[in-house]
């Protein structure tokens, strides 16, 4: 048995994992990063439109601050988020963006003088002040009060990923790609590393570490129609689930993005609408103002996606061989803007659909349809990023349910979370690794390696009639059909039952090639059962949650129910032979919230079952605020009085802004 010892083990080499690795490496820890693919190819690279941080440099973002970013994030989450974590996040985001600038991310900058922009389908002139020239600029995104999304054209994730990966290289972080973690090594409620398979040689090794951090991204590929990369199969969260100890949070909270292109499902960034692009129906009519008079195309993603489907159901979709779709029109932004700021979007439209979106009129419209995009759920953690149940296991980024997104994530808050959580959780993770020793017997490590070794041999020895690819494709179709944007009890019950059958069927497959390396079917054979477990957490969580909140929308329970459902779903897989997860709930305490539940400001009105404490807490908040304002206290002091939060390093320092008085 080959055992690799290190201080800090990071599983997943996207933005979150790499930034966490930078944090541990900087604290003098010997850090290893494991990744399925070369780290610069991680799905983080596909983030197009930008990263939210309240730097407030440009004209349309002037006056922005942490408080506004916090309020937008909480409303976006439909009050499902952990407000303390949201506070930690918004306070660190400006620091993250400035750190990245220093690492070479070429953020698009403010240019002094006048320029034309499209706002609400009208040409508008924006004039930038000379003293802001050269500072980081930002664009508009859905669900935000200010233009807060910082960007590098529409390749923001790519430049961020290269910046952070280069920094990790500079610090000599030990990055090993084409490595897949198959299980976590744990004993007495503490995690000690992972059993890892080399995807080139097929060899199994153990990685033993003082602490382990999972940053493997989301689980979008349990759906058929998804913008996610093919590696986003949720297996990182699945191996945490399979410990039987660590919990997953809010797995039913799945975001559907309004504008992936049809049929490939490749994302066209929210920046298209943020920059002024509009949605049109079969008649060429701009329909979003009819449904959302205030935010129009720029309501939160869950709302826009539902409105699009609603409009299609009203018979206004555009028919195509792939079913009905909606048109996205960005031609009104002008060719110059598109070829500079939305270049990848243009390239995607041209290469995959033969459409030049800069051409005015119907010829330049791109066919779009809401598809799975983001996993709000993941490994449930404390605000430090450590699992609530399995000591020494940390998680950050999309893999985690940290939980700053609640039931709907705002555009631009995901890449932002990756680096911010990498900074915050990475530092808490480093402290854990400094304070704790490895004290696990080699025999225990051997036991975990043997278990995976035997499992692989069992899979190769199976001689059943089922086909693993068919099972996988059926799961994806089922998730699309019955656990999608619109959900109801009947279909969710059917989904859970069929997913259980599919999980059973994975024990009756046969893998054609019997070799242990270079065998893609073997990889499917051990991944698909894990994906099915994740899918079951999503479907069962959705079946049980009899309300509509954020992206979780029940046609049989249309209201957000703060009386019964202001809580977080926790799933465990108690016994390896179980066919479905065990669900418990973690309550959210209104009386500690800085922002008690209310109307989001978009979406249908009058659809909330209010909790009596919401009003009580709101009065408390108002009283404290009024009193402290009268005493001349500033917004930071008031915030602290309402809901204190901690941050590691010097991240708690106030963020300087050009507009500071």
């Amino acid at each position: 048995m080959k055992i690799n010892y290190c201080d800090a083990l990071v599983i997943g080499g996207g933005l979150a994992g790499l930034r966490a690795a930078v944090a541990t490496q900087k604290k003098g820890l010997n850090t290893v990063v494991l990744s399925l693919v070369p780290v610069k190819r991680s799905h983080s690279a596909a983030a197009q439109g930008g990263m939210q941080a309240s730097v407030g440099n440009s004209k349309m973002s002037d006056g922005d601050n942490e408080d506004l970013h916090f309020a937008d994030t909480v409303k976006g989450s439909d009050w499902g988020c952990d407000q303390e974590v949201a506070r930690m996040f918004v306070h660190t985001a400006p620091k993250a963006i400035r750190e990245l600038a220093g690492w070479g991310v070429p953020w698009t900058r403010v240019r002094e003088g006048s320029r034309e922009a499209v706002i609400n389908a009208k040409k508008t002139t924006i004039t930038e002040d000379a003293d802001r020239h050269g500072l980081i600029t930002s664009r508009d995104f859905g669900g935000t009060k200010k233009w807060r999304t910082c960007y590098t054209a529409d390749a923001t994730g790519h430049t961020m990923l290269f910046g952070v990966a280069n920094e990790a290289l500079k610090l000599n972080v030990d990055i090993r790609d084409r490595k897949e973690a198959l299980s976590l090594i744990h004993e007495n409620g503490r995690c000690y590393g992972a059993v890892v398979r080399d995807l080139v040689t097929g060899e199994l090794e153990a990685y033993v570490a003082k602490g382990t951090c999972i940053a493997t991204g989301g689980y979008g590929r349990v759906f058929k129609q998804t913008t996610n990369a093919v590696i986003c199969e949720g297996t990182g969260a699945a191996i945490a689930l399979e410990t039987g100890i660590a919990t997953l949070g809010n797995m039913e909270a799945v975001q559907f993005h309004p504008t992936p292109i049809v049929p490939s499902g490749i994302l066209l960034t929210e920046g298209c609408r943020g920059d002024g692009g509009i949605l049109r129906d079969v008649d060429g009519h701009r329909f979003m103002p009819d449904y959302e008079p205030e935010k129009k195309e720029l309501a939160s993603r869950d709302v826009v996606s539902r409105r699009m489907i609603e409009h299609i159901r009203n018979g206004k979709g555009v028919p195509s061989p792939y079913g009905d779709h909606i048109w996205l029109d960005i031609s009104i932004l002008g060719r110059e803007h598109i070829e500079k700021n939305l270049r990848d979007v243009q390239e995607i439209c041209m290469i995959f659909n033969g459409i030049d979106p800069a051409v005015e009129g119907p010829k330049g419209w791109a066919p779009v349809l809401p598809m799975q995009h983001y996993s709000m759920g993941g490994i449930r953690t404390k605000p430090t990023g450590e699992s609530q149940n399995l000591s020494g296991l940390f998680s950050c980024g999309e893999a985690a349910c940290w939980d700053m997104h609640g039931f709907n994530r705002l555009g631009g808050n995901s890449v932002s979370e990756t680096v911010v959580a990498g900074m915050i959780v990475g530092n808490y993770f480093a402290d854990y690794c400094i304070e704790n020793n490895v004290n696990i017997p080699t025999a225990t490590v051997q036991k975990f390696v043997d278990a995976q070794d035997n499992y692989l041999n069992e899979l190769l020895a199976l001689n059943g009639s089922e086909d693993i690819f068919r099972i996988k494709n059926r799961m994806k179709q089922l998730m699309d059909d019955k656990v999608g944007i619109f959900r109801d009890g009947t279909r969710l019950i059917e989904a859970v039952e069929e997913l259980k059958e599919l999980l059973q069927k994975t024990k009756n497959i046969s893998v054609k090639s019997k070799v242990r390396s270079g065998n893609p079917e073997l990889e499917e054979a051990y991944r698909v059962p894990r994906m099915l477990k994740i899918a079951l957490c999503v479907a069962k969580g959705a079946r049980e949650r009899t309300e509509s909140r954020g992206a979780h929308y029940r046609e049989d329970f249309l209201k957000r129910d703060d009386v019964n459902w202001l809580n977080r779903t926790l799933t465990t897989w108690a016994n390896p032979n179980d066919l479905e997860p065990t669900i418990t709930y973690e309550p959210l305490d209104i009386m500690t919230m800085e922002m008690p539940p209310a109307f989001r400001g978009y979406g249908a009105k009058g659809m909330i079952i209010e909790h009596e404490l919401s009003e009580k807490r709101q009065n408390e908040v108002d009283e404290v605020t009024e009193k402290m304002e009268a005493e001349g206290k500033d917004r930071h002091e008031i915030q602290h009085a309402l809901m204190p939060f901690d941050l590691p390093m010097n991240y708690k320092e106030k963020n300087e802004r050009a507009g500071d008085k």
Partner: protein
Amino acid sequence: MSTPKGREITISALKFDPRSAVSKPHFVDYKLEETPGMTLFIALTKIREEQDADLSFDFVCRAGICGSCGMVVNGKPTLACRTLIANYPEGKLTLMPMPAFELIKDLSVNTGKWMDDMSRRVESWIHTNEVHDISKLEEKVDPDIADQTFELDRCIECGICVASCGTKLMRPDFIGPVGLNRVARFEVDPHDNRTAEDYYELIGDDDGVFGCMSLMACEDHCPKHLPLQNKIAYLRRKLVSLR
């Protein structure tokens, strides 16, 4: 609306497992029906699911963003995910792994390892002694300079330029267009304090900027349309004066 039956196409893929004692490089032909908008990503996935579960290839984003799927299609290195079958009227596509990189199996090559080595050679990170307090305003950067840096930062390290490179065939240690572009990128970036002399130390030899024979297949094939020709010429002029 129903979709009419598509034409039958042939995908001919090189298969070889260097880890196997018995495997020899050979082509296998797969026949399948073309569907509207079919890319090589869709075709190869279908082949693996329905015809040959043992066929190895690499895809991640399938959108031309991550650079994982470079392969040689009918003699030209290209991103497989952006290769539309409809653009091949003869209906036959011959696939080979990219040369210049270590072969993992079939169409899968180890570009990651190569790019890592390249990144270390050109020290592909910001060099500065200044410590910036991240709670304070960021350093101002001229918007045009930021845009220029971004232009060169768009490289996705897919390796297609290296697979296209004539010089790389003659000089195994050639840093490749991708490496020279990296240097050009940091040379523009005002955050990086390296001087021309520093860059000369890294690439001022025949395995660096003076090795390029200017055949420029790199720029012809670059999926991101990077200005490789210009940038290599610029670096060469700049560094030759230091010789």
